[in-house]
């Protein structure tokens, strides 16, 4: 409930800033940027390989927002519109043409005993081990590689949902997907990342 109220306040503030930007108040556009540049940058960085490429996409996104602000009808939240523009900038930079075609399987077959169909007794709990300070640095690299290995749409969904903590509904609106399709892809992305980390951690001798 508290977060719904916070979302409402954010939406109201954004709408006021959009209106002032339309009337030519550049300080309002500056404030919109301040509110969102960090989030849009993280999305771009999650999608791309390096900071400079991410910055290019963020620059294009905000320039588009400024130029198209008169076309924003307020049918969705400003943030939804902005994230959509940002993702388009990212996709343009990545020159991706078939982002909707790529899927990943659930990737859980090796977790089950082929005879009984039950989860294997060999599944280990490495969650505490992952707190090891020495391993942390290494894991960060493994995580970035694993996220980069996700198909683009899954990467976007995972970043918006689990890093930016948007709701499934918001992510679905940004990506133009149903909530059900968003949730399916999110689950597959989470399973894929869990299994990548698991393989890495189980391959390191204690």
């Amino acid at each position, binding site marked *: 409930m508290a977060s719904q109220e916070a979302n409402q306040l954010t939406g109201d503030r954004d709408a006021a800033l959009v209106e002032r930007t339309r009337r030519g108040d550049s300080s309002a556009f500056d404030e919109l940027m301040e509110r969102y540049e960090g989030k849009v940058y993280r999305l771009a960085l999650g999608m791309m390989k390096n900071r400079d490429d991410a910055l290019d996409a963020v620059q294009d996104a905000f320039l588009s927002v400024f130029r198209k602000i008169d076309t924003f009808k307020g049918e969705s939240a400003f943030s939804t519109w902005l994230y959509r523009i940002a993702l388009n900038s990212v996709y343009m930079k990545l020159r991706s043409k078939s982002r909707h075609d790529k899927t990943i399987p659930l990737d859980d077959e090796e977790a089950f005993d082929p005879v009984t169909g039950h*989860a294997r007794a060999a599944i280990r709990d490495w969650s505490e081990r992952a707190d090891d300070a020495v391993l942390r640095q290494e894991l960060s690299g493994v995580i970035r590689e694993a996220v980069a290995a996700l198909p683009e749409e899954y990467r976007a969904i995972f970043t918006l949902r689990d890093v930016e903590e948007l709701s499934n509904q918001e992510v679905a609106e940004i990506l133009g997907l149903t909530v059900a399709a968003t949730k399916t892809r999110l689950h597959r992305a989470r399973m894929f990342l869990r299994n990548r980390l698991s393989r890495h951690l189980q391959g390191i001798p204690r």
Partner: protein
Amino acid sequence: MSDPHGPAGPGCREVFELLSDYVDGELSPETREALEGHLGACPPCERFLKTFQKTRALCRESLLEEMPDELRTRLRSFLKDRIRGK
């Protein structure tokens, strides 16, 4: 400890499929209870859940990077030039 693989509750595969809805708090109370019944009686599934949750926490921690000040400055200066020069 009851048999987690009996016909009454969800099996391991179903539990795996429901893990995201479970950690996101999106299951009905009945399904949640059935799933927790399975997890409490099935150590491999419980261990899997722990690593599934840990993965989300580790990923968020690794990817929640602040925008460096230098890039903020470059962004602002780029937009000022482009907007003024439009």
